[in-house]
């Protein structure tokens, strides 16, 4: 027997009809005033490699069925991964029992009726068909040249194929499919004195070039050897697209309207209210989300069944909107605006090389790591550079430098912007999984705040 692809003949992905039938069956057991059923049918395959060989690899499929039951303002949900009638009935009953005993939630919104969704099919056949042998073949396109060069490659491939279906007692039905893949590799020199990273993510596995990733990481590993220490401080930086993605995605989490209105956010306007309509960064910056964007495909509905529409968050540096849940939107007289797992930033033309060529003295950053919040008032985060940090002198990369810790905010970064290159899809998740779908340019900015040196390679 050869290993299967993600969804094989024995466990095919749930079709729209089968998913609808399953939600109907679950809802038929409901005695609640309102109910919602969410089905998540997923397959995941992954292969890890370390020290130039595969270390672990595995596949798993699962179906999780979640039932939300509502009586008046009382609600609760329960989930199971068993599909038989007895289990569905029991799960419905658990959610009903919990809901009846739960205190009232004055903010509870009624379940939605039928909705209109954008027509997005996020399913790429090349991703769903990726099997363990295909993953091993991609691994060898990195480990073989790495071993030949006397280097040590470590990395990870993940492929996800998910089906989500939602139905409510008010007549809503939503169905969507989404694949996601990523490949990342860290190549180190045998003596541990150099380390280079490369990565890519896309809903379509055929867009990922394993050989190119491997060459990129190998090149960085060799060039990053014997880094020199230079003083921490404020530097002009050229950030590769992945490093930009690492920081820009943090804005998404901070753009919550309610927190802003309540006075506990960067987006709070001093004196009261929020910063919608105010300029908060360089006028060349626009940030938008579109679930139908071919490079950032996402579900066209939220777990509540609310339609996800193309949304512009920042236009020409000015805040256009913040994310509003249904309750807060109603209270403030706004459109509900969900946060989406897809983000695209504006850019310019050219790539990292052009930005380097225009820089007299600065630091080139491959990516950031262990990025954690320090102060929500300014969206200040700390973290470190990693796997390829270089000094730029007179328009050229001249030497590898030791890694830095930074304390910086994406808001300050985008106010200190000097130039942007062409936006590209990146893998910006910390764990190397598909993560948030994000398209960002390489950028050059001044006064980036590096606060200390790290000995880590």
């Amino acid at each position, binding site marked *: 027997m050869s290993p299967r692809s993600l969804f094989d003949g024995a466990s095919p992905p749930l079709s729209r009809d089968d998913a609808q039938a399953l939600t109907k069956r679950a809802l038929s057991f409901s005695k609640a005033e309102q109910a919602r059923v969410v089905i998540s049918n997923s397959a995941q395959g992954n292969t890890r490699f370390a020290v130039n060989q*595969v270390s672990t*690899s595995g596949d798993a499929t699962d179906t999780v069925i979640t039932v939300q039951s509502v009586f008046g303002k009382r609600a*609760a949900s329960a*989930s199971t991964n068993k599909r038989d009638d007895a289990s569905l009935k029991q799960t419905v009953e658990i959610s009903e029992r919990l809901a009846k005993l*739960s205190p009232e939630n004055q903010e509870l919104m009624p379940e939605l009726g039928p909705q209109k969704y954008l027509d997005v099919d996020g399913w790429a056949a090349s991703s769903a068909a990726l099997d363990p042998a295909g993953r091993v073949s991609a691994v060898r396109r990195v480990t073989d040249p790495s071993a030949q060069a006397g280097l040590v490659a470590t990395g990870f491939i993940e492929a996800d194929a998910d089906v989500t279906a939602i139905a409510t007692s008010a007549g809503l039905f939503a169905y969507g499919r989404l694949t996601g893949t990523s490949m990342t590799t860290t190549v180190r020199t045998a003596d541990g004195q150099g380390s280079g990273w490369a990565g890519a993510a896309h809903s379509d596995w055929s867009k990922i070039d394993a050989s190119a990733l491997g060459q990129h990481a190998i090149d960085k590993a060799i060039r990053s050897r014997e880094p020199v220490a230079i003083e921490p401080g404020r530097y002009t930086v050229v950030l590769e697209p992945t490093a930009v993605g690492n920081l820009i995605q943090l804005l998404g989490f901070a753009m919550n309207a309610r927190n802003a209105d309540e006075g506990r956010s960067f987006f709070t306007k001093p004196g009261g209210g929020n910063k919608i309509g105010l300029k908060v960064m360089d006028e060349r910056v626009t940030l938008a989300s579109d679930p139908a964007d071919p490079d950032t495909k996402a579900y066209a509905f939220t777990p509540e069944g609310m339609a996800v529409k193309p949304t512009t968050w920042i236009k020409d540096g000015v805040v256009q909107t913040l994310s509003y849940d249904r309750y807060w939107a109603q209270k403030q007289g706004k459109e509900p605006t969900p946060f989406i797992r897809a983000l695209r930033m504006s850019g310019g033309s050219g790539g990292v090389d052009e930005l380097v060529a225009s820089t007299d003295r600065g630091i080139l950053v491959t990516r950031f790591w262990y990025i954690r919040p320090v102060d929500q008032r300014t969206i200040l985060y700390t973290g470190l550079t990693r796997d390829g940090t270089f000094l730029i002198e007179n328009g050229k990369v001249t030497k590898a430098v030791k890694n830095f810790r930074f304390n910086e905010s994406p808001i300050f970064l985008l106010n200190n912007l000097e130039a942007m290159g062409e936006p590209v899809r990146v893998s910006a998740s910390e764990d190397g999984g598909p993560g948030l779908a994000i398209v960002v340019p390489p950028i050059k900015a001044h006064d980036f705040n590096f606060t200390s040196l790290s000995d880590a390679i």
Partner: protein
Amino acid sequence: MSDRREFLKHSAQVAAALAAASAWKATGGAADLLAEAPPASAPPTDASIKDLMNDALNAAKMAGASYADVRIGRQRRNFVFTREDHILNVVDTDSLGCGVRALVDGTWGYGGTRVLTPDGVAAAAKEAVAIAKANRLARDQAVVLAPAPVVKNATWKSAFTTDPFDVSVEDKAGILLKANAEAMKVKGVQFVFSGLFFVKEERNYANSEGSVTTQTLVRSWPLMQITAVAPDHSDFQNRGNVVPPMGRGWEYVLKSDLAGNAGKWGEEAVQKLSAKPVEVGKYTLVLHPSHLWLTIHESIGHPSELDRALGYEANYAGTSFVSPPEKVLGKLRYGPEFMNIQGDRSQEGGLSTMGFDDEGVKPNDFLIIKNGIFNDYQTTREQAMWLDWWYKQQKIETRSHGCSYAQGWDNVQFQRMPNVSLLPGEKDLVWEDLIAATDSGIAIMGDGSFSIDQQRYNAQFGGQTFWEIKGGKIVGMLKDVAYQMRTPDFWNSMDMIGGKRGYELGGSFFDGKGQPGQINAVSHGAVPARFQNINVINTGRKA
């Protein structure tokens, strides 16, 4: 997709709170923990589950596996979240399935399924073998497992007296709403978020060598975040991470007394608004166990994972400065003579505490740092063999420390952190004694912001509350404090630690490692400790 990401999808509010939270505070301590009644006997392995595990092992062997193990697990989670005067979420989840790991010609493969029938588990086993065979093309060094005693029909149950899954949602919500009301009574407190998070696991394990184990575990975490906002909206401050998660049940929630403590936490949030911004410089730091557990976790727990040290996690978690083993074992001075760090899965109430690991090994207690010198790594059966030379040199048995763990049936097991703790010093000193002995410095309580590099050298930590020490007394509150450190310098600057009475457990419900990321829950015991000449920065900026 990780459990945590899956869970966080349920609520943006929860996501925000948990991103900020990680866990913490001071209740109990070792003395209290030891005083609890021993756990009642655990239920035996269900006969039908034992049959299914046999079916899976037979299928793996028939397909060509030289070794196989199977886990049939059920994980239930329950969480209740509230804000101010009302409930936000009540969620119950239940997941049941089977994971099979097979070793073929020295190469691993893994398959997982939710179909718990003889055919379903056999298909997962065959899949594991097929993947191992496919992987063989990209592997030239065979996996060798350290010997482990066969454990037949062993059972174990964690230290809970009341199963949180037997407690009504009314009672759970009632405790939270009462605590919220107490916090909201404090002038200046505008918002409160609170929650209870429970996990119950039934873990069945069998391997082709004949081991069979069944374990029941419960974990509980009470959460609260209290927010004070300046009247002109120019500032806001949070007090969170108030109670550490524990491997205990409902009785622990009651003992945490959220309502009784909420007023004090609320006052601290308000006090932070008018606290003095710290001046940057070098300081003496006195760190409370409610803070120090996280520094131990990041700067000792992670770098002493053997897979990291040997490069297996280089692509995500990173490598380790505690490497290569032959240059650091018995040689690297990590800290002062009185510094001893223990790895164990035996402390009652510890989040990583278990009777048997995910290879059927009964974990042992071991010293990671002995009298200030690096002494041992965290290991699984595969990894213990990599240190065979060291154990032979020490004239001790080459065995796994029992650190194999998978977050659920749908992930493959690998090396995860046991409880890693700073052992008490010989002198009977408590927190107040360390403050009294300090002429000038900063005392830090509670865990806050944290970040560390991929080899675990350079770290930065915040906290929950910061206190200025002058002349052996706390004279006022500071804010915007974070310290930056280089791990070996930091631990070697430690000049004073507390004794047994000052020992407390902190911990994390959500420690991430591996690709795909897996979550492990882990506790860290610590005593209060003092550090000299530490670099403190001010994190406050103008927006």
